[in-house]
């Protein structure tokens, strides 16, 4: 089993005809993801990469019973694309787009309250992958391996590192979720941890956080209430530069929360071990020393590099 994404996921790709959309749709298809539709206003009725194209997501859902979506559209149009996907009834929406204005996302978050059945991942995220089954987004599948470690992360490349290190150590993954690095996000650590908690196939959890916000602290609180998962956390940005602050408003809202220290303390208080590097994360999690064989070479199908 897995969370969020499985064999029944029928994916519609918004922005499928763009450069990024095309490339990553092919990647998704190559690992067996059911990409059943794409949208591109004005191109309805045509076909692209063997996928039927529609003018609107609503049309795509009506005609193909798509239930999940990936968004590869430029920042000025991405917020609208998310709302369109939610209004069309998709239950999982993954927005890869980086650079969406914060106010747009705040409006989107409010809009999504009208569609409680819709789960948004991202934006500014690598998406998610259920190894061996399907992916939506841009996580390089060649480093993934089916298994029992859940991975949830705010970072893209750090996720890949952790995934590759887990795979090298022979520890496969149930689902890997990159929730994204923006201040205003869809699913939070809390939400994803909860999902892993309820997934019987997942036994271990790697949580890769970052400074800023208190989503990590809240996830720690949840884990602290008792969890069947063996969890290790890693927080990046311990030495990151503080933004040069002008006003007081940000500080009033966040106070002392959101620092690497506060996050690490929260996990420790919850009985969750905290690693200092991604290699250490893997070691703490699965016990194996990261005796690495060259990653990226255990799957050698063509066209995936």
């Amino acid at each position, binding site marked *: 089993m897995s969370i969020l994404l499985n064999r029944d996921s029928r994916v519609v790709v918004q922005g499928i005809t763009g450069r990024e959309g095309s490339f990553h749709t092919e990647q998704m298809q190559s690992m067996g993801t059911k990409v059943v539709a794409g949208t591109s206003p004005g191109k309805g009725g045509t076909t692209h990469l063997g996928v039927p194209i529609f003018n609107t997501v609503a049309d795509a859902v009506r005609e193909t019973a798509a239930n999940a979506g990936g968004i590869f559209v430029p920042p000025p149009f991405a917020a609208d694309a998310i709302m369109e996907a939610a209004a069309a009834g998709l239950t999982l929406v993954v927005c890869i787009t980086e650079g969406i204005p914060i106010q747009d996302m705040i409006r989107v978050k409010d809009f999504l309250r009208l569609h409680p059945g819709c789960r948004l991942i991202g934006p500014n995220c690598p998406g998610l992958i259920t190894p061996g089954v399907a992916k939506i987004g841009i996580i390089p599948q060649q480093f993934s391996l089916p298994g029992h470690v859940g991975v949830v992360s705010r970072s893209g490349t750090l996720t890949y*590192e952790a995934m590759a290190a887990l795979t090298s150590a022979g520890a496969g993954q149930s689902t890997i979720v990159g929730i994204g690095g923006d201040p205003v996000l869809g699913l939070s650590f809390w939400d994803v941890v909860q999902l892993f908690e309820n997934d019987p196939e997942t036994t271990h959890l790697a949580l890769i956080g970052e400074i800023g916000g208190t989503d990590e602290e809240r996830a720690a609180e949840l884990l602290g209430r008792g969890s069947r998962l063996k969890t290790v956390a890693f927080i990046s940005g311990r030495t990151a530069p503080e933004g*040069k602050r*002008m006003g007081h408003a940000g500080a009033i*809202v966040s106070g002392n929360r959101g620092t690497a220290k506060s996050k690490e303390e929260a996990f420790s208080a919850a009985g969750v071990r905290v690693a200092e590097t991604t*290699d250490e994360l893997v070691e703490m999690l699965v016990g194996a020393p990261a005796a690495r064989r060259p*990653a990226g070479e255990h799957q050698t199908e063509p066209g995936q590099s």
Partner: protein
Amino acid sequence: MKLLEYQAKEVLSQLGIPIPSGKVATTPDEAARACAELGPVAVKAQVPVGGRGKAGGIKLVQTADEARAAAEQIIGMDIKGFRVPLVYCETALDIAQEVYLGFTVDRDARANVVMLSAHGGMDIEQLAEESPEAIARLYPNPWRGPLNFELNQLVWAAGLGSHSRALVPVIRQLYRAITDYDAVTAEINPLVISKEGQVVAGDAKLETDENAAFRHKALEERYGDVVEGDPYEREAKKRNLTYVSLDGEVGIIGNGAGLCMGTLDLVQRAGGRAANFCDIGGGAKAEVVENALSVILMNPNVRGVLINVFGGITRGDEVARGLVQARDSLNLRLPLVVRLSGTNETEGREILRANGIEPGASGWEAAQKIVEMTR
């Protein structure tokens, strides 16, 4: 973009928020003329950081000669890394009460928050910590904006109900600044209430969302070039790089913000200090690496460079070839350690080694190496 005080005040004034009379002066003579015209003024350094007052960047003057002298001192001084390009001469205010009015994005709530307190001024952060209930908060729905009754509740909750007639329009207009200009922070502190019950913005801060810059080209054109901040950051911005200057000696390039931040952490753990944060994003094309390297090398403090790249879509051998090319075209003489992982990492490492670049097996090993080499 962080607007300077006078810029923020121009914006707020256009939205109908009262501001004191003031004039920008780029020379001491201009400051003297401004004072001659306006009477007693505060001569205020214009820099996009807080703490100007404590740094000596604000002086109250009575005469044109005093204004000239103050401007002479202030213009060109350095405040937290910013050279003061100009001063703003503003008439002194009749102050009965100083109120705090601020807006920011509360990322935990995924929402905007408007904050109002009857106790404005410099100690507001301390107040927030010690008596959080003294700061009234409103989370307006982002589609509806703040409703009248919500603004009234806010004002009464802050103990400022008797001034609601003057305050509510200011709060509403400050909120408009948020929606009209995609602000991520907007602050009027102090918002001054005069003895006659008039309100006026004593100071103003406005920071806009870089992600929304495409909607606000006019603002960027009007105000974008006034402040000379860090020269390397300016250069990086021109080249579309995500770059932040730091104090150390190890130049850093990573692909992905998380990996980049993680690399900073590793360098510190190894006993070194990073000279910058530079995220070159998803791929690692030769030209982007070259661009990033050349900006990093502009900083004379840099004694070596650590590059940490994960090859996902891009293959490690391609990344390695790009790196070699960039190093050669820049004729790099400083120590360089590259940590390459992901697709075809073995081939990539071979290429690096063959070209005399030290590969690191893990990020931690690479960080230790570069710190040693730059010690």
